[in-house]
């Protein structure tokens, strides 16, 4: 499926100035863009949700391309560990709001671009109001609840949602535009339970991967604006940077989709934290935790404790935990026989999120001994007990 019409109405278009003609001459020389296309770019308003790994190339390329108005939404500040991939921010921007840092960079690249900063988290309360003013939304967020929120708001407002997401070496891209094809919910009716898929902060991500995927998104945004070409509507592009393979899959609209199907049941924005299982489920027993300092005291007192490091070998090497027995998460239930259920067992990972899943897996497998989660993981141990270890 492809869309050939520009989504920018002709009556919003203004002529280019001579300065603009010089600046964008390499676009004007392309018959597929030309003066008409560049005028459409100038008239276009694009909202970029998230100014992280995907948002960085999106914002830079769209600004360079002459998109007239760029909105950027983020509530975060620049952290040192962002700089490995979020190339719109610089070392001197550490601790600044991401939208401020991004706006400065966009302005220095192309002063003609109107930048609207939304220094806030996108929520069910503000999403429709913010998105309404834009022609296209580019989703560069990093969590499921915002992805469903962006999807639903775009479907309700009839806007195209240019989608990209990344994990480790792998990316996905598509254009969800319910008027013309499927939406995000048609592909994924509901999200995985929290923590099942590790986040980039736990799972890692190749720095250039969001550069590639975000640039693909920018390409799709430009085609929607100028019209023509073959868009990713109805197609899911999979990219594996390690294998260096692109694969393309067909996506169809799901007639049973709760928001864009034949009989929609969602007519307004919902509570996405609840939808994504981020509010505690009362049926589920909380996992017992232990603080790093308390673990240290118990070990010093000579308590017999089984300490289980659920990290893979390459990750253990970053900040090794002396005396822990390594059992990677993927092998936990298979190795249930190696535990002694008369002794407390403490589970650890980087920040104490994946280790919860190890505990749940053992509980489900019928393990009866006491299971404790090291609160905030090895990073807490490095912070509170052993300062010689790095936090990562």
């Amino acid at each position: 499926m492809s869309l050939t019409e520009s989504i920018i109405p002709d009556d919003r278009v203004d002529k280019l100035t001579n300065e603009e003609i010089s600046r964008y001459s390499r676009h004007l020389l392309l018959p597929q863009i030309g003066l008409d296309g560049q005028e459409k770019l100038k008239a276009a308003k694009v909202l970029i949700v998230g100014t992280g790994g995907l948002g960085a190339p999106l914002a830079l390329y769209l600004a360079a391309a002459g998109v007239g108005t760029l909105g950027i939404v983020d509530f975060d500040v620049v952290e040192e560990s962002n700089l490995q991939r979020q190339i719109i921010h610089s070392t001197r921007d550490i601790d600044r709001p991401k939208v401020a840092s991004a706006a400065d960079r966009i302005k220095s690249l192309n002063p003609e671009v109107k930048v609207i900063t939304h220094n806030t988290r996108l929520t069910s309360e503000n999403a429709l109001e913010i998105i309404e003013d834009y022609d296209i939304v580019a989703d560069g967020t990093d969590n499921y609840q915002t992805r469903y929120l962006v999807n639903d708001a775009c479907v309700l407002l009839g806007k195209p949602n240019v989608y990209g997401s990344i994990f480790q070496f792998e990316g996905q891209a598509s254009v969800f535009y319910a008027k013309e094809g499927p939406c995000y919910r048609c592909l994924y009716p509901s999200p995985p339970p929290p923590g099942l898929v590790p986040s980039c902060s736990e799972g890692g991500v190749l720095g250039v991967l969001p550069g590639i995927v975000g640039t693909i998104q920018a390409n799709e945004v430009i085609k929607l604006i100028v019209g023509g070409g073959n868009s990713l509507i109805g197609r899911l592009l999979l990219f594996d940077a390690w294998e260096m393979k692109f694969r393309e899959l067909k996506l169809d609209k799901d007639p049973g989709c709760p928001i864009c199907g034949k009989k929609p049941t969602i007519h307004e924005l919902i509570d996405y934290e609840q939808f994504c299982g981020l509010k505690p489920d009362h049926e589920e027993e909380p996992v017992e935790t232990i603080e790093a300092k308390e673990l240290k005291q118990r070990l010093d007192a000579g308590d017999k404790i089984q300490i289980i490091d659920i990290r893979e070998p390459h990750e253990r090497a970053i900040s090794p935990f002396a005396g822990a027995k390594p059992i990677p998460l993927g092998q936990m239930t298979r190795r249930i026989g190696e535990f002694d259920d008369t002794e407390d067992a403490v589970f650890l990972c980087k920040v104490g999120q994946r280790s919860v899943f190890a505990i749940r897996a053992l509980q489900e497998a019928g393990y009866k001994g006491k299971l404790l989660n090291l609160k905030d993981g090895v990073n807490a141990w490095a912070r509170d007990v052993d300062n010689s270890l790095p936090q990562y």
Partner: protein
Amino acid sequence: MAKVLIPTALRAFTDGSSEVEGAGKTAGEVITAVTESYPEIQKHLFDEEGKLRSYVNVFIGDENIRNLGGLDAPVHEGDVVTLVPAIAGGRP
């Protein structure tokens, strides 16, 4: 035999393999064969009732099995089965 492509997010459960083999005449049989070789992946693909999880899509070639009869979709010798889970990217 069908080739089953394992996405990065699920490779922790296939001892790191990005491609595994599964024998079977339907999508369901092929995936079940994979879960027999790698039991830890089972609960990430199927729910308690044995239904495919809604955040995992299965494609044979470039077609979603939803359009081919679901888990009963026929798999032919040499077909490539791709598992496509939702990924969010970034922080939790």
